């Protein structure tokens, strides 16, 4: 795996938001490679509705950071043609559910072009999808659509849970010769961390999970917006003597089976946590793989804590849909299938 950023030091770090890190990643990628073109609805003068592309049109011109007509299939479809001519388009879908009109382009062309042409026509495309709930968005502004993308061979699907990963993974996505659906957890846009944009810390390339918090009694497997939820749950569980390990997948496709398997074999118990509906969702795939590879190490069934199996709810009810700390802790308590918890596992 290649690394995409140089090692940083603790000195000189200031609090930065995930939004700032994403902007910086695009800016640095555009400065490093004239083939990188940003495009989408409102990405130019406005800087995007979340201001993630702020300043790019000013710095690189409106050809390199282009406002397009309002049409997602057109945005992605023209980006396919641009990639065919050697550019590296970075397209914004503005909101998760706004990407659905572009599905045919994504599924029929973006994901298959390399395969269709026996490798002759790669698709170095990055599709930024601000996703997930928790920001009080109205209908079509809170979906977690990653399962659709994961079910499409040919696409990479990544999602950062931290400021550093937001920068590192977006640089890796733009540098990739394969199409990457870059899922941005909207409610983490304003999360902060000490981070130095001049010396961004090292982040492995696409396809590597990370143990965010080591633990011994059970593994929480999660990604994106649920990473802070799981870390908080792990802290809360400590008071009751439970030592939870938190694995942040970072990349849903490719799926890092080694890191997940090694963790669950150590702890013997696993809960998969995500916001998207649980039925036929990412957790089902992950739980099945854990079952296949860790069966003899498991002390309890693999559980899932997911969003409800409902269309994304109205904002005044979304708190009941989104898996929070309590629901995670509930699942953890149900892991005491046959054995009581013992200190240190």
């Amino acid at each position: 795996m290649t690394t995409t950023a140089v090692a940083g030091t603790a000195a000189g770090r200031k609090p930065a938001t995930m939004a700032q890190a994403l902007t910086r990643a695009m800016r640095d990628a555009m400065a490093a490679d004239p083939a990188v073109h940003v495009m989408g609805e409102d990405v130019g003068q406005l800087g995007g509705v979340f201001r993630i592309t702020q300043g790019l049109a000013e710095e690189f011109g409106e050809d390199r950071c282009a406002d397009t007509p309002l049409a997602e299939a057109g945005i992605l479809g023209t980006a396919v043609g641009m990639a065919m001519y050697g550019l590296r388009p970075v397209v914004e879908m503005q909101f998760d559910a706004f990407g659905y009109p572009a599905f045919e382009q994504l599924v029929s062309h973006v994901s298959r072009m390399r395969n269709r042409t026996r490798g002759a026509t790669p698709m170095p495309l990055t599709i930024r999808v601000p996703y997930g709930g928790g920001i009080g968005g109205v209908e079509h502004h809170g979906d977690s659509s990653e399962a659709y993308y994961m079910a499409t061979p040919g696409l990479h699907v990544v999602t950062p849970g931290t400021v550093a990963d937001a920068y590192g993974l977006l640089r890796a996505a733009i540098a990739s010769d394969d199409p990457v659906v870059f899922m941005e957890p909207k409610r983490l846009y304003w999360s902060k961390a000490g981070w130095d944009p001049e010396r961004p810390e090292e982040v492995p390339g696409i396809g590597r999970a990370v143990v965010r918090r080591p633990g011994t009694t059970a593994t929480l497997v999660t990604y994106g917006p649920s990473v802070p939820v799981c870390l908080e749950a792990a802290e809360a569980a400590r008071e009751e003597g439970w030592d939870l390990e938190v694995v942040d997948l970072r990349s849903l496709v490719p799926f890092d089976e080694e890191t997940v398997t090694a963790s669950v074999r150590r702890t013997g118990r696993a809960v998969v946590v995500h916001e998207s509906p649980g039925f036929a969702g990412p957790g089902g795939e992950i739980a099945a793989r854990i079952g296949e590879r860790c069966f003899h190490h498991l002390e309890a069934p693999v559980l899932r804590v997911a969003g409800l199996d409902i269309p994304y709810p109205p904002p005044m009810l979304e708190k009941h849909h989104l898996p929070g700390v309590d629901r995670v802790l509930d699942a953890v308590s149900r892991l005491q299938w046959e054995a009581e918890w013992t200190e240190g596992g």
Partner: protein
Amino acid sequence: MTVLEQPGRAYHPAPPPAWKPRTEAAPLLPDPEPYRVLGTSAAEKADAGLLRELYGALVTGRRYNEQATTLTKQGRLAVYPSTTGQEACQVAAARALRPQDWLFPSYRDTLAAVARGLDPVQALTLLRGDWHTGYDPAEHRIAPLCTPLATQLPHAVGLARAARLKGDDVVALAMVGDGGTSEGDFHEALNFAAVWRAPVVFLVQNNGFAISVPLAKQTAAPSLAHKAVGYGMPGRLVDGNDAVAAYEVLTEAVEQARGGGGPTLVEAVTYRMDAHTNADDATRYRTDSEVEPWRGHDPIALLEAELTGRGLLDEAGAAAARAAAEEVAAGMRERLHADAELDPMDLFAYVYTEPTQQLRAQESMLRAELEADFQAEEEDAR
């Protein structure tokens, strides 16, 4: 409190800014009659070399269609969507382009790709079923044959825009059928192209049917070329069986795009003489009496009449054209009758730059299955 409620202040609304149209519609509108050259006095001005060249390409194109249809009946191609009767559109599209330009064909446009110089076997790989695309698109400047309808049109727009941003002198010509004009991607592609003034030409081959559905059930527009006006680009209507007219209109549109004049929508009015594919029964939705008038307006016969009338073609010339076409057909027969050589491991080779761990595992599984099969065959042979 609103303005009206404020005491002592009368409400004097300002008039809205004067409305004016963004683009004058009149010059964008297509002529009501399709543009024709053959059979009119304009034909006399057509270059003799061009006429002969188009004739040779049409004769070869007809033979290509017949051979591919026969190969389908023999089970050598999985399916073949014929362009018999539409050869003039196919040839004109290919000939209107310069080497640096790009062609974006649909699944029915293999003949256009062949007329552009692509090896017929490479053009037919998709329809034979050994791989989806049989050639390197960048090498030939021919996009993969597109099976979904109209989805290749935005690709053409994006590629043309990218070329222009890089300062390259490249035009993209994208082909679509009458049914494809109903798809959302048709709308989005034309809109993007016009807004960006991208160097693109859209060629709609109106062959009368979307599988079985006639044009009257496809659109309520006066013509498909009329659709251009709503996007702010010119629409041109041309006789798609008149190779010279189609060549002239497309060449003009291509050169206008090249010169910065923006995109054009060209509707070529033609007719699908064969069924949609070998899997289709055209007698269920049209009668012989409907097809018959189009036999009298055959693209090859039209051009032949002009050539013989001007003394540009004799029996020896016609025989030479047929012999050249026969050579192409013989090559197709010879090479497509041989079984395709396939490597099942290719299934995993091109999904990603690097196969995922999961794909590697499946690759090992398939390899083991193949080895077991091979060993079983060896044992059977002993």
